[in-house]
């Protein structure tokens, strides 16, 4: 085995362990902030896997979009509404956990079956490496033009929706019901951002 292939193997193993362990942490940890930070770690490791597959543009895009935008957005949402209140105990928690664990294991079994039975070594086109950036652009503006444009329209709709929701105070009537807007709802009582951590 040459140095290059063994390095690749080591990188692959480390990244896979990070992805699997991180993803388990995201789901199983009770502190939601840890889950959010671990999610960022998982996204980074996935970007590393893309790099190993010689897809550097996709890797950089993965870091920028998933880590730099989506994960930061999640963190923002958690930190701005972090109230650390005690949630009501859910009835039959153990049963619920067992059932959801069973569903997840079933999904895992299905995926494992797909991985094992699919013939992965298809004689596809050779990897393009550095040319991939230009190739992606070509595809986006020729045969994938419609999904590309639809995605941008979808994002525009989401943006307009967010503006309408955020600027309710300037609208005289409620957007949904058409009644006069209740200005009292907008000025909510503020709760402190950080409550004292319980001494444990």
């Amino acid at each position, binding site marked *: 085995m040459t140095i290059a292939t063994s390095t690749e193997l080591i990188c692959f193993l480390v990244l896979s362990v990070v992805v699997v362990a991180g993803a388990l942490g995201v789901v199983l940890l009770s502190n939601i902030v840890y889950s959010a*930070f671990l999610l960022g770690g998982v996204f980074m490791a996935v970007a590393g896997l893309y790099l190993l597959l010689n897809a550097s543009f996709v890797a950089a895009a993965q870091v920028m979009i998933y*880590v*730099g*935008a989506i994960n930061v957005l999640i963190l923002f949402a958690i930190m701005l509404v972090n109230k650390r209140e005690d949630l009501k105990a859910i009835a039959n928690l153990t049963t619920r956990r067992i059932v959801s664990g069973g569903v997840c294991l079933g999904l895992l079994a299905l995926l494992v079956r797909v991985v094992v039975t699919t013939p992965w070594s298809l004689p596809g086109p050779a990897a393009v490496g550095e040319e991939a950036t230009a190739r992606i652009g070509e595809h986006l503006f020729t045969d994938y033009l419609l999904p590309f444009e639809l995605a941008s329209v979808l994002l525009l709709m989401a943006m307009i929706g967010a503006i309408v929701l955020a600027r309710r105070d300037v609208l005289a009537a409620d957007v949904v019901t058409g009644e006069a807007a209740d200005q009292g709802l907008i000025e909510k009582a503020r709760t*402190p951002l*950080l409550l004292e*951590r319980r001494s444990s």
Partner: protein
Amino acid sequence: MVSPGLDLELSFSQAMQGFGLSQEVARLLWLPLPMLLVLVAAVVGVLVSVWLERKISAAVQQRVGPEYAGALGVLQPLADGLKLLVKEDIIPARADSILFTLGPILVVVPVIVSWLIIPFGQNLLISNVGVGIFLWISFSSVQPIGLLMSGYASNNKYSLLGGLRAAAQSISYEIPLALAVLAIVMMSNSLSTVDIVNQQTGAGILSWNIWRQPVGFLIFWICALAECERLPFDLPEAEEELVAGYQTEYAGMKFALFYLAGYINLVLSAVLVSVLYLGGWGFPIPVEWLAGWLHQPIDAPVVQVITGSVGIMMTILKAYLLVFVAILLRWTTPRVRIDQLLDLGWKFLLPLALVNLLVTAALKLAFPVAFGG
């Protein structure tokens, strides 16, 4: 036609093979060398800019500045660093110790990794990755996570507010920054930093991108200052409002990491401005012309060494000129308010960057000769 230039890796590899080592072992031995060199260069760059900051701020305020540590106080940054190194490392009792430690690391690592794409010459960079400048943009988008992490982990309202402000600022200025870079990329038909510089080397100073992208240059510079949290955009650590923002609870080496990240980022941004708009390693008069006038073959080893050194000198000179401007700006401008900052980012720079991109695209179609068709 661009000359191949010096290829140190090839020479090193050949020398090692002369000692009877295989090609792979030679490559393995070579790999850490440029990384170490760039890391040392980045840290020395920080020391120099800290000294410049102290001296220039003193000059602006008609003081003398540091003068006892070494001649003209050149050793002062070293003394600062040493002081921070031996200071007690305090983790507040109710802070989250894991995230508190991880935060500064996450801030400093992406900045250092970004030096990967900084070219000092045709072959004088760690790795000529095809997605070059895009890699830098995506790495710089990781930084807000470290800031949020350290702001949150400090368990302090000033830290949390500072962290949130830093992240908001970083996100909002990343978009016009990326759009300004996109206009450059459109002109040079490549994301690689080497190609971007090569596209500007045709006629020396006249072919630099700053003449074709003056608006983009200003947008990029403003956004880079905002990304570095330099005054007038240093809101995340505005002393009068937030104590020191996300850095409030930090002491010793962890604080030094923030400090280091800030200055490395400043030097990095200055180098990138010079790469994108000021011709990178290019001399104002192309070295090929100079060699031609002196009747020297451009491929001769001596000429190659000289052009390589000139390239490194020009990169450093341009970068430090911009660092000087940034320091002068810091000590002469007042801080903006957070709403003014976000207004400037979203309502002025973003539309301006979009218009700049559109105009560049139109000019590229209309005058493909001048705008890299």
